[in-house]
């Protein structure tokens, strides 16, 4: 039995979950349907309310 975690979806939520778990020392398998991770947020130009860059 393994203690790995599977994360489905490589948008901002999936990436954050994966990073938290990986930083805790847990092996994460991150599955993304598209060729690259990033999700919808990668498509955004800037974000409210600080107008920071999205990526």
């Amino acid at each position, binding site marked *: *039995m*393994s*203690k*790995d*975690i*599977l*994360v*489905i*979806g*490589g*948008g*901002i*939520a*999936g*990436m*954050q*979950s*994966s*990073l*938290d*778990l*990986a*930083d*805790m*020392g*847990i*092996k*994460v*398998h*991150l*599955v*993304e*349907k*598209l*060729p*690259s*991770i*990033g*999700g*919808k*947020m*990668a*498509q*955004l*130009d*800037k*974000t*409210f*309310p*600080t*107008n920071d860059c999205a*990526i």
Partner: protein
Amino acid sequence: MLDVGRHPNIELLAYSEVEKVEGEAGNFKVTIRRKGRYVEEDKCTGCGACAEKCPTVVSDAFNEGLGERRAIYSYFAQGIPSTHTIDADHCRQLNGKKCGICAKTCQAEAINFDQEDRILELDVAGIIIAAGYDVFDPSVIPEYRYREIANVVTAIEFERLLSASGPTGGHMDRPSDRAVEAEIAGLEKKAKKSQKAISKLEEKFNEPSAQFYKKYQAGEYKDDEDRKKWADKYTAHLAVTEPLEELKKQAEGFTVAKRLAFIQCVGSRDFRFYPFCSGYCCMHSIKEAIISHEHEPETTSSIFGMDIRAVGKGFEEYKIRGGNNSNITYVRGRVAEITEGPDNNPVVIYEDTRERKVKRQEFDMVVLATACAPIKGIAELAKTLGVELDKYNFIKTSSLSPVDSTTPGIFVCGCAESPMDVPESVAQASSAAERAAEIAFQMDLEKEKAVA
């Protein structure tokens, strides 16, 4: 994103899908299909030389179809992994035609047209669903005439137009104007060709075509075959250049979009589609209006909606600031109808409910703040995983266990659970990580026990 790509504890399985899940919390067996990219991941350096040479042009999904990419491509410029992918539907080589230019270009020898899907089996203790959402397709709302009126776009399309790395380089060029410019480019290409043809003849007969053509029309050169050909070529040339000149004249008047309308609740708070509120769209529109104003200080924006839901930290202040500094007018009233006025300008018709008056207002561009729709394929994924959905097809949770699905060991975060903005998604993602970690560490504790 970069951190995810290079974290030693993260195995990134992009271009992959979950096919089968068996087992229970603490002991899931998962089958994953890694779709063939026709590019070897370990060889591709992501340099992009292949895409530069690829002859096949395809509409670009990342830019919401507003731009173009090649049949071999990286999903977006900074995408992780930077491994390129061949789009099998469009690749010439994979569709039985002679090509293989990418393979010749690639010095890393990463192209492999024989690559097949691979099946991967994993043992995992827990699963987190972060499958995201879909942008609602507003073409099902007849009164908004999205797709019929070129300058009516969705918020995410507008986002790509705003983006410096987007198809317009961040200029607010209107889709109708871009279509004309594309047509001009096409005609110019043709005109160049036909110009070449007649230039040759002009040289041969040492006479400008226009002058010759007048004589030809007057009936000179009746039985001259060569001159008939010339006349034909000249008329063909005129058939290209005349509309070209007209379009060019039209294009002279093009400027960037400066009068913007943002329409809230497109598909949300609408019993016909999604009765819920999508949560982030009000702020998204305000942001787009503010950024547009930063790009072009003459920009004015009207945001049409019912309640402007600026509920997050700093949001109400942001909204007020937008009104004061970025020429944003908030109109209370849901837009009833969009029609097309002169110069491809969309015209919105609405009741200003505070003034209780029906108004018509012309804009350069209209942006639809579309609903956060459950992602396509969520029902199949839920079935594969054995989790329940709520009545709208989001993954079902409860208030006191906000990231637990109905199946132990499977958690959810982000817009797969319900519509939410970025900070909420991030916070929820950490919550899901916490719940998943509880299971993973329990496995550890049990292992320790077993050893002892």
